[in-house]
Structures are given as C-alpha cells and as structure tokens.
C-alpha cells in the first residue's frame, strides 16, 4: 500500500503548494527549505509563535538575523550566560543556527 500511495503521490506532487515548493520555485520539495522551518519549530514551544513569547520567557521576534546568530553562537561557545540556552545552543551546527535565524528573523 505504501508503494501505491507513493506512486499516486508522485503523480500529483506538483499540484500541492507547500512552503518548500513555494520557496524553491515549484520544483521538487526541498528538504533544506522545510528543514529551516522544522528546526525553528522547536524554538516556539518556549519563545512563542514567530518568537513572540507569552509570559516570562524572553521574546526573540525583535532580533534581526545577525543578532540572533550572534546570540546563539555566544551561547554555544559559553561566552554568554543563561539558565538553559547554554545547554541547548551547542546541540546545533553553525549552519543549523543560520537556518534557524533565517527562519525566525528572515534574511
């Protein structure tokens, strides 16, 4: 059944508009592109939708991409102190940090 579904899906792939498709000009779905959205989707559980936090955790929607990359890289290196971010930031590669910042702050 899986195979049948995939075949069907392949035949109609071009009909569906996903952010990935939209972002890559309607070509095949780009893992890279969705991956930024997927990576950043982990941030919103604490920092809120689009970085707009409800409650005590700082909002991050006011940061531009450069500031966000900078903050994450500082948490990653240990130069910047925090309660939890020093344990989270080192889990991401530099490229993933770029992708997250692009997704939340835009380019």
């Amino acid at each position: 059944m899986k195979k049948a579904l995939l075949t069907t899906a392949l035949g109609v792939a071009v009909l569906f508009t996903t952010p990935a498709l939209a972002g890559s000009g309607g070509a095949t779905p780009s893992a890279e592109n969705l991956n930024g959205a997927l990576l950043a989707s982990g941030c919103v559980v604490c920092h809120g939708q689009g970085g707009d936090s409800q409650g005590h955790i700082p909002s991050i929607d006011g940061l531009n991409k450069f500031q966000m990359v900078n903050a994450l890289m500082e948490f990653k290196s240990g130069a910047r102190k925090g309660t939890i971010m020093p344990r989270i930031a080192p889990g991401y590669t530099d490229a993933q940090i770029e992708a997250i910042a692009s997704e939340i702050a835009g380019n």
Partner: protein
Amino acid sequence: MSNAKYNNTSRRDFLKIAGATGAAASAFAIGGCAMGPSGTGPRVVVVGGGFGGATAARYVKKFGPDFRVTLIEPQTSYVTCPFSNAYLGGIVDLNTITHGYSGLSKIGVHVVHDMVTGLDGAAGTVTLSSGKVVEYDRLIVSPGIDFKWNMDGYDEAASMLVPHAYKAGSQTVLLKKQLEAMDDGGTVIIAPPGNPFRCPPGPYERASMIAFYLKNHKPRSKVLILDRKDKFSKQGAFTEGWKRRYGNMIEWVPAKDVGIISSVDAGARSISTEMDTHKADVLNFIPNQKAGKVAHAMGLTGGGDWCPVDQITFESSVVPGVHVIGDAAVIKGMPKSGNAANSQAKVCAWAVVQLLSGATEVEPAVTSNTCYSLVSDDYGIHVSVIWKGTAEGYKKTSGGVAPANMDDAFRKAEAGYAHGWYANISHDIWG
C-alpha cells in the same frame, strides 16, 4: 488528472462524515466546506487531539496548507497533564490547563469528536464508534497511554478511590479533593510506576507540588514516595530542591528498600509488599503503562506493549501508511513527554507532507525536548536535550539538567520559565 481523484474522494469523504450528521450534500463546495477539512490536497487523518495529535494536525496544515486534515478526538476539551501537578499545589486552576479545539478548526482542520475503533490499513480507512468510516492517504496516530491493570487490587474501579491522576481531568480533581480533606499530620503516599512510563519526572514533580500544598496548609504532614525504581529523572536537582524548600517533608524510598509491591487495598488506602504494609491517608498509586488502548485495537503494537516505528518518519513497522507518535510509540532515545510528542509531531508532519508531495526519502531531523519541573512556586528545574535523528534512534548532541547549587534567583527565573513554556507550547498546539 489526479486532482480529480482527490476532489472525488473529498466528496465521498464528506458524504461519509457529514451524511450521518444530517448535513446536506449541497453544502459541499470546491476547496472545502464548513463540515469538512479545508483544502483540495492529500487527506491526512490524525487520531487523538493531545500533545502529539493536535500538534501534528496543526503542522501538517502549516507545512502543507492545501492538505485536507481531519482530527478525530472524543473529548471536546482536553486537560493537560503538564501543569496538573501545579494545579494540585494550588498554583494554577483547572481552567488554565484546559484547552478546546476551536483554534484548530479556525486554521481549517476538520475536528471530529468521535472515537476511533478500528483500522483497515489495506483500504486506508479508520472506523469510528458512530460507525462512520473515514478514508486517509496517510494516518497519524497519537493515542497516549493505557494502564496495565494487573496489580492485585488495583483496577479501574479502585482508581475511583485511589486516583492515579496520570491522565489529567477528573482523576486530578479527585486527588486534589482528597488532599484537601486530609487532616494535618497525615501521610501522602505516592507510588510511581516502573519504566517505561510517561513523563519520567512527573511523580517527583507531583511530590514537590503536594509538599508545596501541605507546607502552606498542613505543615505537619509528610510525603512518602515508594518507588518501583532505584533512581529517577532529575534526581539530584529534585533532592537538592526538596531539602531547600521542604526540609525532611518528602522521603523517597528506592525499589530495593521498598521490595516488590504485591497488592493495593483501595478501601484501606494501603500498599503491601512481601515485607510490609504501608497505610496512607491519601494514596496516589500510578500503574505501569502501555500504549493507548486504540493502538492495540488497530494492531499497531505488533503484540507488544508499545508501537514500533521507523525512527525517521515514525511510520509504523506493522502497518504501512500509518504513523505513530507520542507516548504510544517506541522512539529510541527520547522520553515520553508532551514536549517530545510535540517535537515528534512536527518531524512526522514534515515527513508526511514530503511523502505525499512525491518525496521517496526523508532526511533525519534535528529535534529537541525541554522539560521544566516545579519544585516550589519559586523554584523551577529544567532538563533539555537536542537530538540528531538516525535510523537507529535519537542521538543526543547536547543538553542536560539544571546545574546544582544555583542561587534562589536562578531557580526563581526557571519557575517563571516553566510557566512561559506552558503558555507558549499550549498556544503552539491548541492555538
């Protein structure tokens, strides 16, 4: 071309779902209608509107705006286990931890309040308790846990006297009422389950929140934890916090000293081991666990307690085209938590959208879990992990537990962040 197929099936689907509720077929309009999911794309059906399922429904719609998403959930409102311990402590009310489904309806998810009773994987359909049959192109199942009612003396009827409070709602309210009715000087016994179980820090946060309530209202009382394990999650951080806030009010006894619990007497509120009988004034017995009942009925456990899945897409190893996430699934390296279920749902939604858009392979994801526990109203502790997905499971790339011996300001900040996490993750899930 195949577009017609989806429109046709949409119509059939609509007739099936709406027919029994008496809606007129003429209400159908291209691009969706009030009674069906919005969109004209592939049909994704989600079973269970808890942490995993509600997130999956939202994120399939987010990653594939044209996808037609149906969520099947029997309850019209959902009480979260996260922060249900804070409710026991008197820190939040029941309303704060109760969520409805209108936020999902608003983004075009078709929410059906019914119960799934069966699965036909070959036909690609699920059956509901009302008798309706719903077709899917891919199915995502997140039914949570069920209890192993095999402890001598502890069955569903006994849980009405001795609450487990490990599915939030009436059970949590019952436990709170019992705490309120208890005299000062009483003993509350918590018996945490054996591994694996949902929310590894849950019973110990519960001990903290009960102690918080007792310290404020019945300060001569005691919390005794009779464990079925010899160690527990965030143990160092909890132990430090208990000392700092409650002195000796909480006593934890490891399994090796408790012995094997052989029976529960719900009427007498006591627990017996081969060596001893422990009598409580309030008894919170938490049974051992397995995947939610419907996962077994759908044949997704392959005869075991939990549902085996592909570690990258969370597609069932037993029934192709069906994905299982959350507490019910075996996702190696991750704990059974609400945040993990939320993360898995996003990874799964991403995989499902890609697979139904023509991808034949899905890249492993980088994902995370952050879990705050409240030791007191002004004392929070976290554990946080980032993982890299592999075919064998999730490998930690960083993370850890809140460091030891931090000052009160640090702990207080984390208590605030715990509330912030709750507000933001609930908004991410239910809107």
